[in-house]
């Protein structure tokens, strides 16, 4: 079983719309939504949740007011400035536990966080593993790792040939967690200067973690000079541009109807996405 992860660096380039279509084209793949703090894939795949699980991760310091003598040592030593007026600000606490070790009256305990939930769902296109990070919670990287691990178990159980993962934007912890160990990364970019700048950075992350990358230029006709620039750049880096997808309102129309675009219309966008899936699946089986 092989895994492709779809990334972009810049947000809003079309990762989820492409993954939704891949789900419909791959027939029987296991889907993983690794964008755990703003997951959207379920809006296209319309999953029926079969299993809901809690995600406990990380700790937050808690000060027992009755035992606290207000000596101030914890406030002085906390590197994250998370304690003020002998109260812990949970959004600043990194859960290191330093304060709990040094408190002279043992007034500080570390309490485990319920950081979110993860789900196994059935969709018309195959099983979906997805998650929801709790509001203002950390450890999204760990939740991503859990989603991928569960997707792998599911794929093994189902005998699925592919895992298709919808990744988060950016280049930090949840991206690294989505990427490491995947077989291929598909980088979806757009022909804007921002898209190009961010593509270079996310490509750097792929190299860093030694995952082969393919590029797809979405909405390529917004600025054909920039599209040409991306193609030149990819050529110079030895990266294949696997598809150029035109801008088309049908993508938004399909989203509004909760459908993958390939299931909504037979136009240029759909044909390009079909060809792209063929190319991606070929790169996975070689």
């Amino acid at each position, binding site marked *: 079983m092989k895994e492709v992860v779809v990334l972009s660096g810049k947000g809003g380039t079309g990762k989820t719309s492409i993954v939704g279509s891949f789900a419909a084209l791959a027939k029987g793949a296991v889907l993983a939504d690794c964008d755990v703090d703003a997951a959207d894939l379920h809006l296209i795949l319309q999953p029926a949740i079969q299993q809901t699980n809690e995600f406990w991760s990380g700790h937050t310091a808690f000060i027992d007011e009755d035992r606290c003598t207000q000596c101030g040592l914890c406030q002085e030593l906390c590197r994250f400035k998370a304690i003020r007026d002998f109260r812990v600000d949970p959004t600043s606490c990194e859960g290191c536990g330093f304060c709990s070790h040094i408190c002279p009256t043992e007034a500080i305990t570390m309490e485990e966080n319920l950081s979110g939930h993860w789900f196994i769902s059935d969709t018309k296109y195959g099983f979906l593993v997805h998650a929801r*990070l709790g509001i*203002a919670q950390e450890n*999204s990287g760990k939740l991503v790792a859990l989603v991928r691990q569960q997707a792998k178990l599911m794929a093994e159980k189902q005998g699925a040939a592919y895992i298709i993962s919808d990744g988060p934007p950016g280049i*930090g912890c949840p*991206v690294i967690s989505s990427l490491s160990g995947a077989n291929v990364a598909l980088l979806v970019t757009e022909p804007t200067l*921002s898209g190009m*700048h961010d593509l270079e950075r996310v490509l750097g992350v792929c190299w*860093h973690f030694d995952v082969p990358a393919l590029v797809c230029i979405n909405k390529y006709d917004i600025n054909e000079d920039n599209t040409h620039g991306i193609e030149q750049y990819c050529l110079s880096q030895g990266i294949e541009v696997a598809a150029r997808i035109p801008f088309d309102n049908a993508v*938004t129309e399909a*989203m509004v109807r909760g459908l993958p675009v390939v299931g909504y219309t037979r136009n240029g966008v759909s044909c390009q996405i079909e060809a792209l899936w063929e190319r991606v699946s070929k790169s996975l089986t070689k």
Partner: protein
Amino acid sequence: MIISVASGKGGTGKTLVATSLALSLKDREMVQLLDCDVEEPNDHILLKPVITESEAVCIPVPEIDEKKCTYCGKCAEVCAYHAIAVFSQQVLVFPNLCHGCSACAYLCPEKAISERGREIGIVEQGHADGVDFAHGKLNVGEAMPTPVIRKVKELVNYDGIVIIDVSPGTSCPVVESIKGSDFCLLITEPTPFGLNDLILAVETVKELKVPCGVVINRAGAGNGKVEEYCLKENIPVLLIIPLDTEIARLYSKGITMVEGMPQWKERFMALFDRIQEITGERSRSVKR
């Protein structure tokens, strides 16, 4: 006043709004733009600032003096991130896992641990056409953006208007960036993805007790559900930007909206006036 510009969903137009808002206000206010999307900072592409200062962002990681170390294992025991492993004759440090809390150094009974800075990114400062500018850049391959964001936010100039461009999402880097703001502008698009992620973003700013308002970008695509939601939740829609290929074309070339379409400057100034009204009303009601 600190205004953060966030979204939940990526690619809805945070950079477009943050840069045009800054440029629209610079003639009548002291304006500072801080790009806290340190994973993929883009404001500099549009504003083309002259960078005058650059500083590395380091997090302190432990260094073990093996001459003093007795391999007691205390450091590994207290490390919440499993960044230290102690064997019978050896200590291994995994700097990538270290958050720099310094518990190991402080609690080592032999005082065998010192700290050294490990660079994870940089902060650059400068100016762009009358706007004070700074951004952070996380090094490629690094996982932790929050220390870089904290460093950028140390530069906040409380005397003027500070605009903070936030990364997409709702997790720790977003919280770190928005925290302490007087107002948060949430940029969305009128699509199911836009609405779903707007709801998450609203929950996040509520958690942080920061008042918010919405900018709807690419109006005309999608449906009317975002406006329905805002009405129902009593969240003000402060600006509507239509779906317009000209706006997309300008952005693709790295041209800010108010430079390419100067008629928008007044609308961005009116947006700011509305924010001032809302935050002013709020501080009055808090005082009462």
